[in-house]
């Protein structure tokens, strides 16, 4: 009797799979239910952002940065803007630094809410998504209040931020869907300024995090899907260039906000949570704790911003536009405005690497300028790209459903993987 030949089965996961977080095509070689080899095919969302940035004046690419990791928009802007500021040798006014710090943390919460919701959804817990999006909505309103856009804000500029925080938080209007007591509840935090709104939000948010934790932390199914899945040792995490929660989940206390502080982080009081086992569950705990810590930072920023006023943009007409009023009577201002919006500004020749602690890890921008009004080379170091590259090494030997847990724990967003 001849032996039956058994061969591994090759399977396509995505790019249309709902757990593929966008457009990941994963070619899996399966031995039964066990993954032997995982080969991610990326680039289905490639837009050559870096090449486009080389063809435009510096300021015109800020908006592209929002579209890289499109769930942590302002952190991307921060990395790019910081690279330009490095080369120009300018620094944003202190109030702008605090506003940036505050919005970086708002962004971190936005990102982690999206992550907790979609990761839970991938692993079969529907409700968390609905809870998480409730709070996301409030924070998106802050984005909108300050920049006019809910997601792609283009709010950070070299030399500061586009404008100061609004004195009045926008309110809901009465409509067929929002009226009576419901309308009153929606607007209860929105009577005052945006800082009042954030004050109320940060007072309330820890109890909301408790709600997510109630749904997941001791949930048997959640633990079955995440505990001891995708264990990454500290050595492995470093070899694979991991940063952010992926690295901290493996027990290495590394956070750029503490180690290489930028903006106003040096003045902030917060803790860095680290994991112990380096599995998906630890990374979940790390991210949940990060939300609480971000909440603390926002609170401190709100307090500072209430007490201190001042400019939010450098009064340097080579990089920031003069006021409309000045343009009406000052010839110099008019010329500066014209030059700034037609040609942009030249950046001294040189190169720099500016990194920020984005919610997913280290988001870095390597920029080379040859002195022109456009960057010579912009390279975006995207954390998701790096993390996803370890897919094969980490998932080999796991079961097929664990691949979904891994994609979730990587927190990949294809806007920045494919760039």
């Amino acid at each position, binding site marked *: 009797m001849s032996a039956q030949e058994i061969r591994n089965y090759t399977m396509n996961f995505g790019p249309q799979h709902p757990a593929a977080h966008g457009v990941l095509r994963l070619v899996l070689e399966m031995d039964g239910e066990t993954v032997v080899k995982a080969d991610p095919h990326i680039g289905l969302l490639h837009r050559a952002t870096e090449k486009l940035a080389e063809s435009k004046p510096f300021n015109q690419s800020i908006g592209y940065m929002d579209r890289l990791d499109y769930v942590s928009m302002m952190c991307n802007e921060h990395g790019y803007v910081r690279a330009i500021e490095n080369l120009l040798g*300018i620094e944003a006014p202190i109030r702008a630094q605090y506003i940036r710090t505050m919005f970086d943390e708002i962004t971190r919460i936005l990102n982690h809410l999206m992550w907790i919701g979609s990761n839970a959804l991938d692993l079969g817990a529907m409700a968390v998504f609905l809870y998480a999006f409730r709070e996301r909505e409030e924070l998106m309103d802050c984005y909108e209040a300050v920049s006019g856009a809910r997601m792609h804000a283009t709010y950070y500029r070299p030399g500061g931020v586009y404008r100061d925080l609004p004195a009045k938080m926008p309110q809901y209007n009465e409509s067929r869907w929002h009226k009576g007591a419901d309308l009153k509840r929606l607007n209860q935090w929105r009577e005052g300024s945006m800082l009042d709104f954030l004050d109320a939000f940060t007072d309330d948010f820890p109890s909301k995090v408790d709600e997510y934790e109630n749904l997941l932390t001791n949930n048997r199914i959640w633990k079955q899907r995440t505990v001891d899945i995708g264990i990454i040792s500290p050595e492995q995490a470093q*070899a694979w260039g991991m*940063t952010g929660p992926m690295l901290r989940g493996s027990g290495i206390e590394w956070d750029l906000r503490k180690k290489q502080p930028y903006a106003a982080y040096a003045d902030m009081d917060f803790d860095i949570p680290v994991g112990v086992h380096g599995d998906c569950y630890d990374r979940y705990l790390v991210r949940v704790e990060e939300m609480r810590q971000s909440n603390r930072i926002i609170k401190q920023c709100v307090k500072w911003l209430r007490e201190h006023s001042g400019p939010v943009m450098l009064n340097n007409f080579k990089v920031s536009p003069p006021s409309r009023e000045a343009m009406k009577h000052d010839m110099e201002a008019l010329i500066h405005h014209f030059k700034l919006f037609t040609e942009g500004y*030249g950046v001294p020749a040189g190169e720099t690497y500016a990194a920020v602690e984005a919610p997913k890890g280290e988001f870095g921008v*390597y920029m080379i300028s040859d002195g*022109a*009004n456009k960057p010579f080379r912009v*390279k975006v170091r995207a954390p998701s790209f790096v993390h996803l590259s370890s897919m094969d090494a980490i998932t080999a030997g796991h079961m097929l459903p664990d691949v979904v847990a891994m994609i979730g724990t990587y927190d990949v967003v294809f806007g920045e993987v494919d760039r």
Partner: protein
Amino acid sequence: MSDTQTNSLAERLVARFGEVLGKVETVRGETTIEVAPSDLMQVATALRDEPDFDFSELIDVCGVDYLGYGQNEWETTSVSGAGFSRGVHGEATGRFDWEGRPRNVEMERRFASVVHLLSIRHNRRLRVRTFCEDDALPLVPSLVGLWPVANWFERESFDLYGIVYDGHPDLRRILTDYGFVGRPFRKDFPLIGNVEMRYDPDKKRVVYEPVTSVVPRVLVPRVIRDDVDLQQAKAEAADHWQEN
């Protein structure tokens, strides 16, 4: 990172590697070293393993095409009888199509592979630049053996710039489409691309054709000004500061 620390890093690098390093500079606290492709492996291994350096993480590998570095698209210094030239010339990104792309653009040391390293223990960064010796076949040793994370970065650089990483276990394209032709991030590759695709109702499938729907153009010319714009700007900023 204080200045003294990074200065001493540059000094220690020179002391350790000596002649092997082409150039060592520290600007704004960022240290850059230049290494020839033939020495890269030796230097990188030492940087990773020696406790004095201990660069345990490779943060980034990035291809660079130095073609056209420092080139103007717009003459701003010479004035003709008709004033400044209004026409834009030069061959920078976006101004040409696939047919009219610049050829014979060989120059000395055109391609470079730039590596960013991070030492978690010492909280320190380092940039290592390696210029490829041959434009026609840019070749750099692969760092996958030292830091596995280099794998995708090198594939990306290979895909976009055509830099070949010697010793890479799986050097395939990564970001561009299946069957893509050309090295899209090279400075002599047109911004509008070389092919476009559309659905052909007769053939009932997607077809690729040479680009016709977009005309290469640039709204803002690339211009380098030698004047003291920035010094002036700094002085102005200092003046205006009080007014705010």
